[in-house]
């Protein structure tokens, strides 16, 4: 399953994307095609679609489920016989979690904190499959990670303070 996300812009169709690849044949395909090309091609297909159309498009023998949030498009590439609506709601589920974490998420939040988005996605999806369906649990796990990082930083700064004082 490919998970990607990109936004509309003037010159830059793609702002950025996440890739989580699981099935062997998708991997093959992606390695044959440059990553950027995948996004450009897929972007072309999706951005050309008007509003009020369905959220599914055929692409290279796969189905792409996408959803637009303001200027951001989230999309997932799935197999022909996967359940489209289920995947569509995974996207929404992800967006809700992002929203909760960033507090009314916007494009810039994701761009400047793309690593955060990765952390969150890693709690939501793994091996291309949904891992956790509780928003609360995801939020709790991310918060725990943040605090681990914070603690480490504080420790580091306190150590450097001590060293700094000691060397005075």
């Amino acid at each position, binding site marked *: 399953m490919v998970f990607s996300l990109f936004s509309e812009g003037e010159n830059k169709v793609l702002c950025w994307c996440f890739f989580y690849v699981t099935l062997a044949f998708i991997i093959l395909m992606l390695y044959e095609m440059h990553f950027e090309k995948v996004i450009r091609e897929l972007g072309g297909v999706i951005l050309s679609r008007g509003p009020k159309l369905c959220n599914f498009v055929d692409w290279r023998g796969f189905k792409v489920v996408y959803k637009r949030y303001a200027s951001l498009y989230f999309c997932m590439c799935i197999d022909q016989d996967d*359940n489209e609506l289920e995947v569509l709601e995974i996207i929404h589920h992800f967006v809700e979690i992002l929203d909760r*974490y960033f507090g009314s998420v916007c494009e810039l939040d994701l761009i400047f904190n793309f690593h955060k988005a990765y952390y969150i996605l890693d709690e939501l999806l793994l091996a291309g499959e949904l891992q956790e369906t509780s928003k609360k649990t995801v939020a709790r796990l991310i918060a725990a990670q943040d605090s681990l990082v914070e603690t480490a930083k504080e420790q580091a700064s306190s150590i450097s303070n001590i060293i700094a004082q000691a060397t005075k």
Partner: protein
Amino acid sequence: MTMHGMRGLSVFISDVRNCQNKDQERLRIDKELGNVRNRFKNEKGLTPYEKKKYVWKMLYIYMLGYDVDFGHMKAVSLISAPKYPEKQVGYIVTSCLLNENHDFLRLAINTVRNDIIGRNETFQCLALTMVGNIGGREFAESLAPDVQKLLLSSSCRPLVRKKAALCLLRLYRKNPDIVNVDGWADRMAQLLDERDLGVLTSSMSLLVALVSNNHEAYWSCLPKCVKILERLARNQDVPQEYTYYGIPSPWLQVKTMRVLQYFPTIEDPYTRRTLFEVLQRILMGTDVVKNVNKNNASHAVLFEALALVMHLDAEKEMMSQCVALLGKFIAVREPNIRYLGLENMTRMLMVTDVQEIIKRHQAQIITSLKDPDVSIRRRALDLLYGMCDVTNAKDIVEELLQYLSSADFTMREELSLKAAILAEKFAPDLSWYVDVILQLIDKAGDFISDDIWFRVVQFVTNNDDLQTYAAAKVKEYLDKPAVHETMVKVSAYILGEYSHLLARRPGCSPKEIFSLLHEKLPTVSTTTIPILLSAYAKILMHIHPPDQELQSQIWAIFNKYESCIDAEIQQRAVEYLALCQRGAPLMDILAEMPKFPERKSSLIKRAEYSEADTAEQSAIKLRSQQQTSNALVVTDQHPANGATSPISVGELSLVKVPSMITSENDTSTDLSQQNGALSNVDTQPPSADLLSDILGPLAIEGPPGATVQSEHNAISGLEGGSDAVDGSAIVPVEEQTNTVQPIGNVAERFHALCLKDSGVLYEDPYIQIGIKAEWRGHHGRLVLFLGNKNTAPVVSVQAIILTPAHLKMELSLVPDTIPPRAQVQCPLEVVNLRPSRDVAVLDFSYKFGTNMVNVKLRLPAVLNKFLQPIQVTAEEFFSQWRSLSGPPLKLQEVVRGVKPMPLPEMANLLNSFRIMICPGLDPNPNNLVASTTFYSESMRAILCLVRIETDPADRTQLRMTLASGDPTLTFELKEFIKEQLISIPTAPREAAPAPAAAQPTPQIPPNDPAAILAGLLS
């Protein structure tokens, strides 16, 4: 919330975003890459914070689509950092930058493993996440047991276990053997009792993968899945945080129903009833609501339930409920539901027989063909294609044709291909089929592949009733002002062949047809001109009496193209001109094309094998499964014919009538036979080399029509005669009914093989049988080389050995089909039991196209093959000769009617039969003395002595004396040598006089017809 950002990273990101154009961006990126590279060089000065920052920058640059070809090692090395923040960055950046085959990843395996088996659960999570995302086969092999332990461990918290489940799923996909652990299935079943829904969801994903591969081991999971579904659907005991818009984990419901779809049935009545109650509730209780997300989630569950009902093929009552629901869905406003409604209807066609109910929705489906959304239009097209049959073909195809003019360009090719297939499969009458294809070409000429017009030409050629109609129809199209080139091609072909049938109609005189076609010539490309030239030549041929004016006009055109730069056009122009000027032979060469052999439609094949769009595949596969094709279309009856793109090859030769004859032995064989000027493959000398013919330039596509070639009749006649003379026990009776004639003389080939050990036994236009033999004592090992000379497979191959009583023969398995241009080897073991001149026969039959060919071929496992020449001294010879004093061990006979030959030639002949001449033993120079040993299972080696006394005055007679320790052997060998010496084609049998001595009766087993026959004849 805390935004512990990195200032350097943020500055870099906004710099990049502020770039005005791509060049500026590139510049900025290059600068940053240089900076990062420099910093990495001098590692000591880097704080952990800086390391993290630069690695993130690398990832960001990579995400923008730039190559980052350094620093991967830095990312990997962060994995082994002791502190969480660095480790976390290391794992995530590594997952993004490296793929599973990257060498650096191997370096990390140990660290990853230590993190997985370590006690720190945050480290475990990081490691499991990375392996779950990019773990490859090596990881599967070294980490699977540890990951399994974590998943099953009761001391691990859910956050680790759910990651372990999905990590294991990834490893399983890389190496399915990892679950070949005793009791794994039971543990899977235990996992389904899990209370934590995160772990349960992950485990269910794992289970889907496991059962999709092999459901047998996991029957014990089935009732548990039903139980979980029941629990969720009834909303019992599901924590609030696991409901999504009020629906208890829709994702888990979907996955659970997915698992159930991999089990063929549900045996247990209680489980089954429970499940159907749940499904019924889902089907009936799902309403359309305002909230989009709730609606999507509930319909995700609903569509999965539909799929499960279809799979379990429950009571028909539920099935019709499903169709009714889908019928409702395809008419709703919400596009996603409309899309899925159509898609699931198409799926439903595949699993159950609901065609009739679905047909009721035809009008609505046709409306969807005009939907503003291309995704929905595609699904509607798939569905229409899938539901088409004889009853609605006309309506559906007409709709498709109508839609064609307005369809997007991306869909037109698919659309026209599908319309063409449906028209062919379900045509109520063939004229309608022709109409449809011509309309297709007219409306979407650019999207009509050659296959489509080739196909219509085949139909017209093969159906006499259709020819006049098709000719009139294409003429109508040609009258239009703008005509697509494909239309010109098909018209030129059809009018060239059949315009004479229209000659009496107004506006259809040859002249008018010609000028109509010729008008188009300036507008067409070089691929079409040859077809036009053929048409001109054919039109000219049909004019009675010849029209001088038209003739000179056409000749002038040929003249003009004689110097055309395109070789194909030039060749045709030259040939047609030459043929025209010859007059009479023109008639035959340009006669109507013969009927095509029936073939499977290449369109359908193309559709079946089309990989470009798997979305359409489902419907096409479904189509090809339903053999409801009506009787008019007989194309599927010979699927074995023509393995690779039959039409293109066949059609090629069809279009290029005379120019291809020299190189292709095709349907036009008969033409070339009648026209001596053109050489033909059959007149080439048969090659002794086994492979050269098979690999030679022959490309025979279809079987030729039933053409009996006179020269071969002569050969078989001759052969019949020689067989009668030959007097061998069993002779090959050439099937006179066979329309396929052998190449070369079968009898001669056999005789040649009696003397040598390898060569061609039989050959005809389709197949070549070669033999290679090795003889050792009374054992022989023959290998039959069955070679298919064509580009189509030879089928129904059968080889039966009719073994005479004195041999034991064992033929290894002969395959039923010989693939195109392939050669199969069939070893044949032979054991000689006792002396006999009977000959084993190979009864060989095969089918090529519609021709059933059967030949009976003598096998060169003859008496002399079991002889070993032996040199004896005069002393040995004479002592033996004397001890074998008279009949039945020593036999003498005067043979008349001998082929006159000089003595050395006779000596050579005997030597070639492995009877060794012993020079100088007989004082009379006109006599020959020879010796050999005969090997058989019953007697082992027996010495045989031969003496031949010739009369220099009369070379047609001689006296022969044979001596051996076995009466049968003496007799058989004497007869054998006699057969070889008498003149084969002319000598009548009566010429052989009765043996001088009393004849020993050969041992004839009463039940062996071959031997009896031999006994009667001798």
